[in-house]
């Protein structure tokens, strides 16, 4: 098991047991590098809901969001030796999650394109070879809350990709402009411009709430 390989190396790290919640991200990462699985579990516990929420708002698909959140932590786990503390860990993990979400959206577009080719198939042909387009309704009512929340979620999901990530990071996740710029590898001005443009688009989509 991949986690077992670090048990020996992590034995020394566990000699001084400190609650994970009291350690900074970088301290947890250093401990995880030394094989402390508890430290890595602390990182997961700290970020799993944040990333899940971020990806859910990005993709508008809860199961897909959970799946990609796990994929994000798997990548962090196997790349933890290469992680360096030049910037915040939250920036690092949000960047991974964003890239995965963008890849997923591209996959959806390809699937949708393939499914459109099914329109030209002859009648009687088996159409089960193709993935149907992802037109899932929004998940549980408990998650969505009221009608307004559902409408807002749909409005976010229909934003162009380059506007969707900045507005979610800024207004849903509460990141600063600088953090958003670092996560998306954009200039500060570009980031502010895109967020402003995203708000403008949302105002048009949600005008009956004003």
């Amino acid at each position, binding site marked *: 098991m991949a986690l077992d390989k670090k048990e020996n190396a992590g034995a020394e790290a566990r000699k001084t047991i400190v609650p994970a919640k009291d350690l900074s991200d970088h301290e947890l990462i250093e401990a995880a590098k030394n094989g402390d699985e508890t430290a890595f579990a602390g990182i997961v516990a700290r970020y799993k809901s944040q990333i899940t*929420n971020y990806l859910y708002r990005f993709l508008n698909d809860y199961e897909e969001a959970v799946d990609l959140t796990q994929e994000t932590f798997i990548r962090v786990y196997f790349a933890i030796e290469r992680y360096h503390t030049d910037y915040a860990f939250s920036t690092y993990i949000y960047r991974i999650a964003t890239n995965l979400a963008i890849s997923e959206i591209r996959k959806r577009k390809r699937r949708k394109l393939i499914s459109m080719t099914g329109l030209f198939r002859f009648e009687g042909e088996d159409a089960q070879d193709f993935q149907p387009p992802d037109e899932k309704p929004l998940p549980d009512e408990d998650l969505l809350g009221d009608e307004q929340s559902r409408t807002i979620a749909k409005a976010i999901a229909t934003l162009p990709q380059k506007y969707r990530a900045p507005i979610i990071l800024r207004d849903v996740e509460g990141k600063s402009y600088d953090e958003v710029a670092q996560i998306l590898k954009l200039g500060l001005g570009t980031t502010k411009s895109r967020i402003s443009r995203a*708000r403008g688009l949302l105002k048009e989509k949600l005008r009956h709430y004003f």
Partner: protein
Amino acid sequence: MTNKNLNEDEKIRQMLGGLKKVEAPKDFDFRLKARIAAANPKDFQPRSFPALRIAAPLGLGLVVFAFFVVAGLFSVNDESVPQVALDPTPNAERITDQPSENSLAAVIVNSDRASAENFGRESKPNALPKTNAPISDASRDSAVTAPNKFNPPGLDPNKSIEKPNDFMNLQPLAVKEMLSFLGIEANLSRGGWRVQSVTQNSVAERADVKPNDVIKAIDDTKIASETVQKSSFEGKKLTVLRDGKTIEIALQ
């Protein structure tokens, strides 16, 4: 930015910020551990030279493009190559046992025949015979009348050949028979044809040919083998080695 816009932006921000936070499922950690255990670490290693994924096909495309460009620059100009076959008639019609006077085959046959007849006369090699017959459209005139001249070094193509008629009539003659015709019985030994005996009342006896003479030449044609190349046998003169001296004996 107006106050209205600011208020609307703030309202948007509040609306988005007020969305209910989604939590990870309870079995998140368990599923994550299972996936980590099942994952292959090599799949998550950074690819070496990721730029190669783009550069390699791009470079290959450039090489192919450059090949076609270079091939186009140095291609052979078709107009510089003489067209040999312009006759649209099928080959079966052109290849006949008796070529017509105007055909390319007839020109070549006539050329060879004229060369044989004119051999030995003052003529220039490689010069094709002049003919009034027009060359057919089976070939370009340049393809026939402008051959490349390849002469071995030291050979003067303009030099005439002496006694061409004799050369043309050369034929192998048996030396033993020629000597027997003169009345000489001789054997070919290391030094030449050594006389064994001379027939009485023969030409050789009258010329005083003696046994043990070594016949070196007949009519100035050296004989050192079983046969000699001569156009004709006259039997006018013998060159004989006798007692270490070479003497010439006239035959009558």
